[in-house]
């Protein structure tokens, strides 16, 4: 219940966010550069220490990072708490799997198709869910994702409950051969970097400003004359498409797809990656995916019951480190999260 003028100079205004997103200097910038270089060096280092398994693990990290970045786009900047984001992961994966099963092997067809179908599914889900807000929105996105999960289980043609094997990895032209672990790794890394760059640009564009303004104060944004529903729906659908691409990558990564891709615990994990790394930062989710998946890998080496550690860890992060790992770094002028 703020008076109209009171919010104008506050941190939550879109303009403050613009300054914050545009500039990445000091410790934060350094960490980012070092982190990116480190990720680029994973295949040679893995080959050097003779553990090719790490290429596989880090590729998985990057794929989930892409999914988490796409969620951060609507969660951190748009304020849309979508608890069914793994749905698009499953949709993208199944588009690739089904096309491959019917003889379409080209990645140039499969991947855009995965994005397009995810976009359409997200449009449909968003069109219903965005009519509501708050808790309703959380529950509805969750329920829709679960609906797709049950749909996957009941379609016997494509494996039903057991899932199905991917016939072959997507084919591309020339030297891009996904069966080569390092090449596949760099393809994923390239896509992630591209997504981060485009995402940042989009968030600083007029479109991104309106989405973020709608998060700060939907009524005021609408009063200025922006149809916030359409802007939010577009952002929601774009995030779905990006997550669909992550799903296409994941299908190639595992070479096996199950309805479990869309399971709601998967959605929860992706959301946790975003929070763990730092919501509303775009690069934070990459860090979150890295930490969470490596932690899972380490813990599961000790005990099969690693989730009994992960659960309370999650609770503690939410209770005491809400700003995420990136928020621990100095010069924490982030977005309005």
């Amino acid at each position, binding site marked *: 219940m703020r008076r109209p003028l009171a919010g104008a100079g506050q941190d939550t205004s879109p303009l403050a966010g613009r300054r914050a997103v545009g500039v990445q200097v000091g410790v934060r910038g350094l960490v980012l550069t070092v982190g990116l270089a480190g990720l680029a060096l994973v295949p040679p280092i893995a080959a050097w220490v003779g553990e090719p398994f790490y290429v596989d693990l880090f590729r998985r990290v990057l794929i989930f990072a892409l999914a988490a970045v796409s969620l951060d786009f609507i969660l951190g900047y748009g304020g849309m708490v979508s608890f069914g984001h793994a749905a698009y992961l499953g949709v993208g994966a199944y588009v690739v799997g089904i096309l491959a099963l019917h003889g379409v092997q080209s990645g140039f067809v499969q991947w855009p198709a995965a994005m397009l179908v995810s976009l359409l599914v997200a449009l449909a889900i968003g069109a219903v869910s965005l009519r509501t807000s708050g808790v*309703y929105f*959380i*529950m*509805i996105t969750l*329920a829709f994702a679960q609906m797709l999960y049950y*749909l996957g289980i*009941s379609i016997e043609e494509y494996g039903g409950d057991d899932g199905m094997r991917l016939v072959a990895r997507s084919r591309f032209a020339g030297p891009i051969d996904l069966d080569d672990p390092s090449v596949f790794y760099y393809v994923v890394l390239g896509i992630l970097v591209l997504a981060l760059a485009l995402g940042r640009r989009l968030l600083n564009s007029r479109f991104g400003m309106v989405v973020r303004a709608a998060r700060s104060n939907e009524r005021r944004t609408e009063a200025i004359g922006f149809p916030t529903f359409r802007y939010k729906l577009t952002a929601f659908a774009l995030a779905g498409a990006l997550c669909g691409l992550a799903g296409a990558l994941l299908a190639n990564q595992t070479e096996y797809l199950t309805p479990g891709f869309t399971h709601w615990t998967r959605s929860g994990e992706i959301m946790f990656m975003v929070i763990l790394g730092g919501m509303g930062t775009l690069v934070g989710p990459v860090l979150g995916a890295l930490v969470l998946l490596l932690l899972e890998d380490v813990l599961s080496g000790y005990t099969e019951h690693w989730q009994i550690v992960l659960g309370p860890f*999650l609770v503690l992060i939410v*209770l005491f480190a809400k700003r995420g790992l990136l928020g621990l770094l100095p010069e924490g002028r982030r977005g309005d999260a």
Partner: protein
Amino acid sequence: MTAYLVLEQCLNGLQLGVMLFLMAAGLTLVFGIMNLVNLAHGSLYMVGAYLATSLFQWTGSFLLAALLAVPATLLVGMAVEIVALRTLYERDHLDQVLATFGLILFFNELVAIVWGRSALYTSVPVALAGHVEIVPGAPYPAYRALIIAIGLVVALLLYLLVSRTRVGMLIRAGASNRTMASALGVNIRLLCTLVFGLGAALAGLAGLLAGPLYTVQPGMGDQILIQVFVVIVIGGIGSIRGALVGAVVVGTVDTLGRAFLRPMLSTVLSPSAADSAGPALASMLIYVLMATVLFFRPQGLFPARTG
């Protein structure tokens, strides 16, 4: 014969609806008063089911198992509230969702450690293994009939508790304005713990009743939780009346869809097409219903006056 089949499936739907109501009532009360989205509510159902099943196997008496398991779940619920959830009331929904998601991981794994990952099976207690004739000439399993009866009695008691007693008055006061109720001298913290315990006990009761009908396994609470969300969204968050109506509607639609959609489709489609489309559509039916309701009434059928 067909009429009998339809009647039986309707009763099954009512039975599922009643189970969903037991869950939804607790969840919606907790949301109404504490403004808390509790994903871990399904875990309490699971804990109740496990406690009841092993107590039943151990003591051999279903009644004794019930008398021990429900209060035990109540205590577990209150402990969870005091340890983890109390600090979340003032946080936004995102935090609540994530933290309670963490609790789900914890409880699922804890149950897997204590009881193992494979499912537990129990049979219906001997005294309830027979059939009753609710409508003359139509025998119906006594255990399922008992669930329906218990659910309806609980709904009635809950209504009386909330609208006719002093505690209910405090609950309503807390739901409509926490700060004001607290300023008037109501011990809101205690009230929250009690309400949470009540919700947990209802979830435990649902788990207890579910034991002999469904498989008792880690993660069993998550499946029903999503259905309960659909119930609450359809009924309107925070409204017990909405929870009851939503639960019966969802239970009936889901059960009838699973039973009759395939035969109905096979009259229009080829048998093979009906075989694959039937189950797929049946499992999506309640979500389509939810989307439809939301399209016309974004706040659910019975929007609560507050929150």
